[in-house]
């Protein structure tokens, strides 16, 4: 079967079968599809996870939906945020620089209450869960979380100067997802230690 993309198809044809069957959409539709899937999965109780016996399906569903909502929030935010404004003397549109973690989250493009609640719960549990892990792992996880938090601060600081920067917005969302992945990995790992 021909698979030429019609975006590139030129010239003549002597059969309809020569017409391109594949046409690339003008934009990537996956982010919207993914967000809808996450909502649906949350609605039906979440996806099964490899090997996890302990984490509740409701918790996973909440995490997935919250992170998806965060992604949607940022994606929507991109289309409504002002374009970059040069910071100069007399320009009152200055950066909202993160002052502390809760303030940073408010100032950033995170507005989903489920995400904020879920994140707070997991951070509160983090210390106890880390204690169930080997010593060296505790230190390495701590260092990785510190790396992620530093990255968040750096990105938010840059966004403060350039709030419409799509690249920084995307990196920030993904960094929050990284943090959630680490918190989840610690949660799973501490359960694994208890189960085994």
């Amino acid at each position, binding site marked *: *079967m021909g*698979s030429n*993309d*019609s975006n590139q*198809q*030129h*010239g*003549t*044809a*002597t*059969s*309809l*079968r*020569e*017409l*391109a*069957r*594949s*046409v*690339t*959409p*003008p*934009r990537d*539709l*996956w982010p*919207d*599809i*993914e967000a*809808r*899937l*996450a909502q*649906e*999965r949350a609605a039906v109780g*979440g*996806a*099964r996870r*490899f090997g996890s016996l302990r984490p509740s399906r409701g918790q996973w569903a909440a995490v997935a939906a919250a992170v998806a909502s965060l992604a949607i929030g940022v994606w929507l935010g991109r289309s409504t945020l002002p374009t970059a404004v040069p910071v100069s003397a007399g320009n009152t549109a200055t950066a909202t620089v993160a002052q502390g973690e809760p303030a940073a989250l408010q100032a950033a493009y995170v507005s989903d209450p489920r995400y904020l609640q879920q994140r707070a719960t997991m951070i509160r549990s983090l210390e106890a869960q880390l204690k169930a892990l080997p010593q060296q792992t505790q230190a390495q996880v701590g260092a990785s979380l510190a790396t992620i938090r530093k990255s968040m601060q750096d990105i938010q600081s840059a966004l403060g100067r350039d709030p419409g920067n799509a690249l920084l917005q995307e990196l920030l969302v993904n960094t929050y997802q990284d943090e959630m992945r680490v918190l989840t990995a610690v949660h799973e790992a501490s359960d694994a230690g208890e189960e085994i």
Partner: protein
Amino acid sequence: MIMAVAISGAEQIDWEQGLVQRARRGDTHAFERLYREHVGRVYGLCLRLTRDPAHAEDCAQETFINAWRALERFETRSSISTWLHRIAVNVVLAKRRRFTPKTESLSDADEPAEFGWTLDTPVEVGEIETAIAGLPEGARDVLVLSGIYGYSHLETAAMLGVAEGTCKAQLHRARKLLRDRLNVEIG
């Protein structure tokens, strides 16, 4: 639970069936791979049926979301591409029924043979696409599915929810209209 799949050394790995199995377990990364593999053909079909890029985007999105919901019912021996096309056609028809009353009807026509859809003279691709886009809905639907995507009369009729005879009649009509618009013979 995860089931082992016996793989012999001589057996070819069926890519997409593996992705479907993972997607059924809730793996959206696997589903994304299916999306990336098939979105071009799905969008291409949607675009030709709806003739509008924005509607075609909606159609393609709905197709993949409906496919996700229907993963459990997908028969792994079938072609994923055909399955997605069936879903896409259903999406297009459902939207049309919502917004456009059906007005066209066909008189009985002799059943034509299957066409090869070859033109006796080369024609600019853009001209062919324009002519197809200008066909009435019923004729365009069957021509796109049969003429471009290669589905048989039976498959096309099943996708569109019409009798095979109606499908053949529409194809006959599509061929005649296309011939007149492009001023070529179509075999």
